[in-house]
Structures are given as structure tokens and as C-alpha cells.
């Protein structure tokens, strides 16, 4: 009798689980619960420390290679790291090899620079989208202006104050690549390892475990993984954003999965051995 009742659990219409998940994810959006995010991963801490120790006026190149499909995870990461760079008075250059990123980059630089009183051309520069990343990255090693002679507004890149003294990778203090693709492998292989430029990565949670070897060997100086990585960096710079607010929803959803896995396994054991 009990067995039959319990077996019904495995015949639940999966749409009820979808609905439950939707409710669980929606609640923190409507009313944030404020679950604590107390753990800061070693990789996020290393990324923060590396950026934090850079002397003011150093040039940091951001390669923001993500499109709207990975925006919820990577956009908060990019915002947090760019905030940190501006707060440390670092010079910021932005490139992208994903055409869909141009609008998202525009969104970031519409608001963030104003908060830190940063000016386009003086404190930061945004370069236009370029296809064929490997060819571009290789060319940039000898002369950046061979590829990026103009910024995205058509201004001569050589004459911009932010670009003074910057010609090749050796003039850059750091490369930050935030990507939902395999661009980070390209940055590590063709730039980081080859020209000894420090590289920090920001990737989706799916890709995160695959970059463990690069972190262990020091080929990556630090890394942010998924929305959790964004929340960690927001905690480190003490500026909560979309990453921090998303942690509530993620914690609850992960808890739901855990409860469902445990419940179904316990029921399965009862059915089998009762």
C-alpha cells in the first residue's frame, strides 16, 4: 500500500516541478531574502588581489566576449571588475570578438564611468568589434594600432590620452577576459603564455571546472565563475549588484534540486527494501 503511494511520486507530471522552480526563482526577485554569501573562492580573491595591487594609471585590457545568451552570469562580472578598475584609477581598454557583445558593452559604459567621473578617450577607450580573434590577437603583439587604428567612435586611437605609451602587450599590466565562449583559451595560449601577460578570466559556471589546470599552473592569475563569481567580486569591492541579488535565487533553486534528489533517493530506497 505504502509502496504504491510512494511510487506515485515518480509519476508526478514534470510540469509541476517546472512551476515550483519558477516560483522559487521568482520569490527572491519580488522580495529579496538576503541569504548570506560568505564564502569567497580562492580564485576570485586572487583576481581581486591582482587587480588591487596594480599601480594607478596602469593599462588594463578588457576583452568582453559574451552575448545576451550568457548575460545573466557574465554581465554582473564585467560590471564588478570594471568598477574595481575605475575605483583604482586604472586605464581601461575594451575589445570584443563577439558581435553580440557591442550592445552590452554600451550598456556598461553608459552608466559606470559617470559614477567614477571617467571620460571616454581620457580614462577609457572602446574599440570596435573585430572578427577572427586569433589573427587579431597575433597582430596586436607587434602593433595594436595595426588592428585598432580607430576607436568605436572613429577617433584616431594613437592620439587618445588613454592610449599614451600603449603599443603592444608588453605595455599592458593585465588582460581581463570575460567570456561565454572558448576565448579565454585563446587569450591564455596566444597572449598570456606567449608574451607573459597576466590574464584573469571570467567564465560561465559550466566552463569553470575546465579552467582548473590553468589556475594551478598560474597561467591564469584568477578567475570568476558564473553568477557566484560575480557575487563574490561584488562582495570584495563592497558594491552589491545583480550577482549578489541573484545569489538568493540560486541558493533556493539549488536547495530545491538537493531536496528533490534526496527525497527521490530516500523513496527509492524505501520501495526497494521495505
Amino acid at each position: 500500500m505504502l509502496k504504491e503511494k510512494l511510487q506515485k511520486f515518480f509519476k508526478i507530471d514534470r510540469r509541476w516541478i517546472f512551476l515550483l522552480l519558477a516560483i522559487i526563482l521568482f520569490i527572491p526577485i519580488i522580495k529579496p531574502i538576503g541569504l548570506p554569501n560568505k564564502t569567497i573562492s580562492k580564485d576570485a580573491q586572487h583576481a581581486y588581489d591582482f587587480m588591487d595591487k596594480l599601480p594607478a594609471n596602469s593599462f588594463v585590457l578588457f576583452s568582453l566576449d559574451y552575448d545576451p545568451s550568457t548575460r545573466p552570469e557574465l554581465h554582473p562580472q564585467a560590471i564588478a571588475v570594471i568598477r574595481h578598475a575605475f575605483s583604482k584609477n586604472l586605464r581601461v581598454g575594451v575589445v570584443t570578438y563577439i558581435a553580440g557583445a557591442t550592445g552590452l558593452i554600451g550598456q556598461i559604459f553608459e552608466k559606470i564611468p559617470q559614477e567614477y567621473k571617467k571620460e571616454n578617450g581620457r580614462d577609457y577607450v572602446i574599440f570596435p568589434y573585430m572578427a577572427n580573434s586569433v589573427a587579431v590577437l597575433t597582430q596586436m603583439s607587434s602593433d595594436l594600432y595595426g588592428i585598432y587604428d580607430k576607436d568605436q567612435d572613429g577617433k584616431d586611437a594613437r592620439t587618445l590620452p588613454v592610449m599614451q605609451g600603449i603599443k603592444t602587450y608588453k605595455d599592458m599590466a593585465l588582460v581581463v577576459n570575460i567570456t561565454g565562449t572558448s576565448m579565454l583559451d585563446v587569450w591564455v595560449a596566444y597572449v598570456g603564455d606567449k608574451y607573459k601577460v597576466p590574464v584573469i578570466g571570467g567564465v560561465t559556471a559550466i566552463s569553470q571546472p575546465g579552467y582548473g589546470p590553468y589556475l594551478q599552473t598560474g597561467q591564469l592569475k584568477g578567475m570568476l565563475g558564473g553568477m557566484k563569481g560575480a557575487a563574490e567580486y561584488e562582495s570584495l569591492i563592497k558594491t552589491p549588484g545583480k550577482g549578489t541579488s541573484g545569489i538568493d535565487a540560486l541558493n533556493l533553486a539549488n536547495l530545491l534540486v538537493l531536496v528533490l534528489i534526496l527525497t527521490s533517493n530516500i523513496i527509492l530506497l524505501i520501495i526497494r527494501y521495505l
Partner: protein
Amino acid sequence: MSETWMIIGGWVSAGLTIFLFSFLYKDNPFFKVAEHLYLGAGMGWWFQVYTYNILGPKVWTPLMAHDWMVLIPSILGISLVTQFFPKISWMSRYGFTFLMGYGSGLAIPAGLSTDFLNQIGGTISPFASLHTMSAFSIFNSLLVAVGVVCVLFYFFFSIEHKGSVKKISNVGIYFLMVYFGAAFGNTVMARFSLLYGRFDDLYSFSSQRYFYASQIILAAMAAYFLLHGLLGKKKDSEEAA
């Protein structure tokens, strides 16, 4: 962007999100519309990207400035299209030959150095400085080295897996399982993050500023499914009669 366009954008975004999510309940024409629109818009988007970001600045503008050198890569690129015409498809070999040579030349040394030599170095080098390491770091380095060896044994198929080789490769399986478990857990978390992102946008579009786009579209979809269900039942009972 003007306020009107923002509102229209909000309605389109909320509508397409809800239409695509409606498939989780069951297949319906709204899902099909959103799916086809996605494909069509995607094609259009890439067409304009290639036209305005590659063809224009990299081919057309230099040609207009009498820079004839761009003709060489352009012709090599166009040769790839001859694949579609059997009589002249041999031309595509030149383009592919260039791509293969150029790609291999760049990728092989970089790959060997980054993913092969550096990784071997990273596995071995900690053992040269054991005296300076903490107990945990030594354990960590040993774990990595043992994991690498065991997994390599698992993928070594030139000798039969029996006896001690089998035991070592079985340990390799456990290392792989730990990796797959971590990867799967992260995948679940990533998917939730994406879902959260869409819900967050839907919540934004449910405000007065967007004239309650999310609520209205959601209610309309619910009404459609209700009506469709009721009409379907009526039709079934008529057919049965």
C-alpha cells in the same frame, strides 16, 4: 533610445520569453512563431554583422582606396563558396589549403606549449619544492599527479586493461567521475542563472513603465491554453458522439 522604443522593446522581449517558455507546458503556435522569429532574426543579425563589420571595412573600403592587396584574401574567401557548384568546386581547395596551413601553424605550437608542456610542468614542478610546502599543498600536488597518471592509464588502449593496469585505470574513472559531477553541478547552477536572468527581465517588464507587459502577455497565454483545452474537449466529445 526613446521611451516609446523602450516600451515596445519590453513588450517584444517579454512576449518572446513567455512564448518560448510556454513550450514547457505544451507545444503551441506562439512557441513556433517565436522559434521561427529567432532563426530569422539570427540570420538577419549575422548578415548585417558580416556586411558592416567585415565586408565593408575590411574589403570594400580598402578597395575604394585602391589597396588591391585585399583582393588576395577576398578571392581565397570567395573560393570557399564554390563548394556549392560541383563543376568549379575544386577552387575551394585553395581557400581550404590556406585555412588549414594558417590555422595549424598558429594552433599547434600554441596548443603544445599551453595545454601540453605547461600542464606537464605544472604537475611535476611542485615536487621540486616539497620542503617549502605545507602538508596540505603536498597532498594537493600528489593528488593532482596521481589523478593525471590514473586518468592517462584509463585512456591508454594499447595494452589490455587487466591486473594492476585495470586497478589504476579504475582509480582514473573515479577522478573522471568527480570532474563530471563538478561539471554537472556547475551546469545546473549556470542554467538556473540564465533562468533567473530571464525572470528578472520579466519582472522589470511587469512594471507600470512597460504597461504591465509581462502580466498581460502571461494572462493572454493562460487564456489561450484554457480556451484551447475547452474547445479541444468539446471537439473530442462531438467526435465521440
